[in-house]
């Protein structure tokens, strides 16, 4: 009895530093965000309780458009990441000469500072002299230069593409690991029965990496929903606010205009959406594992 109690105490002692750290740097600010969202906090010294006024103000504006835009942005980015990541993982899993080198070459976007990669894309999107516009003109798709970041729709697509580029290495690596953990004898049995390679992919690989795909989609969904650097560096939410997602909107309100209270209310909305995602994710995961148990 004393032994297990001392074990518990020891375990809690080991956990204490990390727990305190998270409480101070994450939990406290989270609570603070909620309480700030009901105040008119700004650069002024006085802070007044304003009730729901910030929320009423937000929803009186164009917040609905921003929410929809954030969802569309996230949806495109995550699904393209998953598709490219799955293709990449399957290719990297193929037992061909050069495989180790290919795997290594997949990682650079992930290990460099995100902002540096975004600078490079900033040049790629340059209208007069950038690579994308230039190559598309050379092969005849465009008949004149196109400044990708100058128009709403192309700027939107450009920020999605850059987010995909930054996310793809980790998604690919993770899905590759999922594919490698599939027992080999499944493939051998199917092969003995004469199943073609594509059939084996569709009936063995794909169903068995669904849990990994779901997990990765979820991780990717949260980080994309909260993605700040890409849009801030490339467009700062422009042109005309057409790449302004919820996080950019929050940053601009709080840090750009010093409206801490209103910014906090916008941040709370982000937290609510992210919590809803997580809720549904855990329901799906529970359902899946319940299905496996049967």
């Amino acid at each position, binding site marked *: 009895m004393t032994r*297990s109690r001392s*074990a*518990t105490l*020891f*375990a*809690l002692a*080991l*956990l204490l*530093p*990390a*727990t305190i*750290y*998270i409480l101070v*740097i*994450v939990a406290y*600010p989270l609570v*603070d*965000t909620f309480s700030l969202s009901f105040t008119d906090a700004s650069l002024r010294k006085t802070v007044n309780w304003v009730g729901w006024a910030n929320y009423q103000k937000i929803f009186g504006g164009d917040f609905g458009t921003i929410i929809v835009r954030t969802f569309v942005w996230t949806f495109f980015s995550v699904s393209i990441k998953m598709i490219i990541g799955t*293709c990449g993982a399957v*290719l*990297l899993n193929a037992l*061909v000469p*050069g495989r180790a080198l*290919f795997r*290594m070459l*997949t990682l*650079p*976007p992930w*290990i460099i*500072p*995100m902002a*540096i*990669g975004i*600078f*490079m894309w900033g*040049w790629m999107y340059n209208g*007069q*002299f*950038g*690579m994308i516009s*230039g*190559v598309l003109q050379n092969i005849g798709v465009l008949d004149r230069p196109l400044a990708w970041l100058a128009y709403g729709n192309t700027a939107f697509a450009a920020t999605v593409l850059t987010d995909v*580029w930054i996310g793809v290495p980790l998604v690919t*690596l993770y899905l*590759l*690991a999922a594919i490698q*953990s599939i027992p080999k004898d499944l493939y051998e049995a199917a092969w003995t029965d004469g199943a073609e390679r594509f059939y084996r992919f569709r009936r063995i690989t794909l169903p068995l990496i669904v849990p990994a795909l779901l*997990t990765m989609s979820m991780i990717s969904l*949260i980080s994309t929903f*909260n993605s*700040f*650097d890409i849009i801030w560096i490339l467009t700062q939410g422009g042109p005309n606010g057409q790449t302004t997602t919820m*996080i950019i909107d*929050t940053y601009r309100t709080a*840090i750009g205009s010093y409206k801490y209270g209103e*910014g*906090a209310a916008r941040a709370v909305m*982000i*937290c609510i959406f992210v919590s809803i995602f*997580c809720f549904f994710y855990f329901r799906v995961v529970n359902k899946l594992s319940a299905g496996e148990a049967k």
Partner: protein
Amino acid sequence: MSSGRPMIDRYRWYEYAVIYAGMFLFLAFVLSPFVEGFLVSLKPLTHLFSSPYRFWPDDGSFDAYFTIWEHVPLLGRYIFNSLLISTVATVVVLILVVPAAYAFARFEFPGRGPLLGAFLGVNMFAGAVLLIPLYRLMRSMGLLNTYFAMIVPGVAFLIPTAIWLLRTYLLRIPRELEEAAWVDGAGRLYILRRIVLPIAAPGILVVALATFIGAYAQQFIFALTFNSKSELMPLAVGLFAFFGKERVVWNELMAASFVGIAPVMIGFIFLQRYLVAGLTAGAVKQ
């Protein structure tokens, strides 16, 4: 390939063609910004801004790599700051995470599941969402415009993944040695220090690498918001000032970027084996 290879792994010629073509497209997407960025760094600025677009520089030179040291006087400092911030963050994360992951992997105690869930839940909230209270917190602690303002918040968001990776690793290590030492009368702290740490060293190395990369790759928003001293800026924020200018000196920006990431790229070439193997092993088993 070798004759010992099982039939199932043999490809027909068109399958090779499809695989290599797909691989080429995939890597072209991943690497094109690097290739283009590097070629840009070789082109003189006047030739850079000339139509029609040419992929290959006819008159390439490494001039930009010499002029940047004059035009970006703090470049060396930025590189150093980036590495310093990531290194300190990694050390702090390890100090916090090694005991925590060990507790989660080896001890039964009430509330273990929910507590682990709470740690992982931190991943839900990006630093950007909590920026306002974090800013106030940093200000009240007097940390604004210091290295700590960029290290302290970053560490918190690196903890969850590090705990998860290391816990997964520890769960796969057999516990017989620890139990034998316990029977022999060794103390718990002694077991952790003298038995678990040495055995888990490869796992800790992988977690350290992954944490370092996380700290290195994502240092932007805190550094942008909590620090305004040029001499403390990490690479990304230091160069952002040049990116934001009316007329961006692209060849020098790219040259400075490549010089800036060179130390980490070189380190990556040596360590990538551990990284790829470690992450793919630890990532999936849940």
